[in-house]
């Protein structure tokens, strides 16, 4: 478990003082894939770097696996870090070492014998599907391959936790998907708890079970991904999750309903039911429904020809426990 309590971080520069994090409280359970999402400059990187103390908080506790890392000696901190892997947006591989040399690095540091280290490195190469690149240098790899090497390297010492700071932000959509799938399988197969920092909702949506929304140095909202997705409360979460209002072209005088799918009702049966059972002439103005962990989340804007039709639809929806709100 990672437990952060009352954490604050202030950066002092020559000319000013930047409060990067203020009074952060966060609990990440073992086995979670925990997303931390926010806009650029919100404090995400600072927060994740406080977890392994690359950044030392000014206040607060960072308890990883029962130990408050802010209180241990440097030597103990180094040992604790072997249990917390980290990957980065820019991969940060050692350019002068081969792929296997990079993966062996943390093992070398941990004092593992060379032969054993290489054996472990080859296992990891198999996990990240790069067995044929063992002796390549980072400059010879694509972005996705570099991130795979970084993942293998971060996992070399068998950490319980893996921190990912914008790990897919430098990658194209297909590569992003394959890296996220790899992270997901690492979580499932080896029970590694993963913390994912991102500014992209799609990343959280694809693999996270929990999410915290961070804005201007504060955590404004956190909880199950499904919950936050269906019912974002903070402005920033709405902005990140809900579609841009201006994208929905509701004409003057047009009345409509916003249907909300929270993982219990399903999009298609609702729509076809409305049309079939009530004989309504519903018009879909906008729809953004996603499947997360096999459930449907999102919302859909429907317009109806008359106020009466809307009332009919509401009666039908009430009977089926579909959430909605009246718009227009």
């Amino acid at each position, binding site marked *: 478990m990672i437990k952060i309590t009352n954490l604050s971080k202030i950066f002092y520069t020559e000319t000013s003082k930047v409060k990067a994090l203020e009074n952060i409280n966060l609990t990440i359970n073992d086995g979670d894939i925990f997303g931390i999402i926010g806009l650029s400059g919100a404090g995400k990187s600072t927060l994740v770097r406080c977890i*392994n103390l*690359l950044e030392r908080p000014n206040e607060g506790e960072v308890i990883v696996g029962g130990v408050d890392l802010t209180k241990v000696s440097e030597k103990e*901190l*180094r*040992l*604790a*870090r*072997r249990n*917390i*892997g*980290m990957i*980065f947006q*820019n991969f*940060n*591989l*050692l*350019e*002068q*070492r*081969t792929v296997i040399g990079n993966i062996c*690095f*943390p093992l*070398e*540091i*941990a004092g593992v014998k060379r032969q054993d280290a290489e054996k472990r490195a080859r296992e990891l190469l198999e996990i990240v599907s790069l067995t044929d690149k063992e002796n390549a*240098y*980072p*400059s*010879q790899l694509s972005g996705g391959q570099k991130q795979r090497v*970084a993942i293998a*390297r*971060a996992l070399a*010492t068998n950490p319980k936790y893996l*921190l990912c700071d914008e790990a897919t932000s430098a990658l194209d959509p297909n590569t992003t998907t394959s890296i996220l799938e790899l992270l997901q399988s690492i979580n499932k197969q080896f029970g590694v708890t993963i913390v994912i920092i991102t500014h992209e909702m799609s990343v959280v949506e694809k693999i996270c079970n929990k999410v915290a929304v961070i804005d201007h140095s504060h955590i404004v909202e956190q909880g199950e991904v499904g919950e936050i997705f269906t019912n974002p409360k903070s402005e920033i979460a709405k902005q990140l999750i809900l579609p841009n209002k201006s994208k929905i072209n509701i004409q003057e005088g047009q009345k409509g309903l916003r249907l909300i799918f929270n993982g219990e009702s399903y999009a298609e049966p609702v729509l076809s039911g409305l049309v079939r059972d009530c004989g309504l002439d519903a018009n879909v103005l906008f729809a953004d429904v996603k499947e997360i962990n096999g459930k449907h989340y999102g919302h859909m804007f429907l317009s109806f020809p008359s106020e009466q039709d809307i009332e009919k639809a509401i009666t039908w929806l009430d009977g089926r426990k579909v959430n909605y709100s009246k718009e227009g």
Partner: protein
Amino acid sequence: MLHCLLTIFQFSEDFIKLWEKGIILQSIWETVYITILSTMIAYLIGLPLGILTYYTSKDGIRPMPWLHKTLSALINVLRSVPFIILMVALVPFAKMIIGKSYGNGVLIVTLIIAAFPYVARMVESSIQEVDHGVIEAAQSMGTSNLKIVFKVLIPEANPALITGGIISTVTVLGYSAMAATIGAGGLGMLAITYGHQRFNDDIIWICVLLTVLLVVAIQELGVWIVRKTDKRIKK
């Protein structure tokens, strides 16, 4: 190569005389060994000094403002004194160390003193080029500061360090040409005593040419080593 040079220089009778006395080869050898020996010893001091300067800097591994400022000031002061002045100023110091106030030994001592701050600065800037993200990645794996120096900074900065080494060597070679001022040998001495002082332009130009050839040879060697060792170059 030597044969080729001899053919070119055959027009110069003075050159042939000096060649036959063995003075040309002797001077080349002196220049080469003075340069290499001085540079090597300068690195023994300058390499750790440059690393320490980076290590203690604001964005370094462990910021220590006081130490950093002191080291930086020392390097800057020594670097800003023109070599010829430093050389004559250091003659008494050199005498203390080697017991003489003229000759190759004195030159080597002064070259080392002039070169080590230069080397330190070169090393510092080479190491600064190592991506900070890579250092952080190593820290996130629980690497101690000492291991970061030896397993991350030096190996990752290796190509830049080699390039810096070549530039330093060439600089020392240039300084060593002022040897005649304190009675040391080498191509500089040859140019002054057999060329300039005897109004013998041939010899001066021959010295220029030989120096250029030495510099080119050193640089080519450096480029070759870097190309062989830098893994960032796609092959």
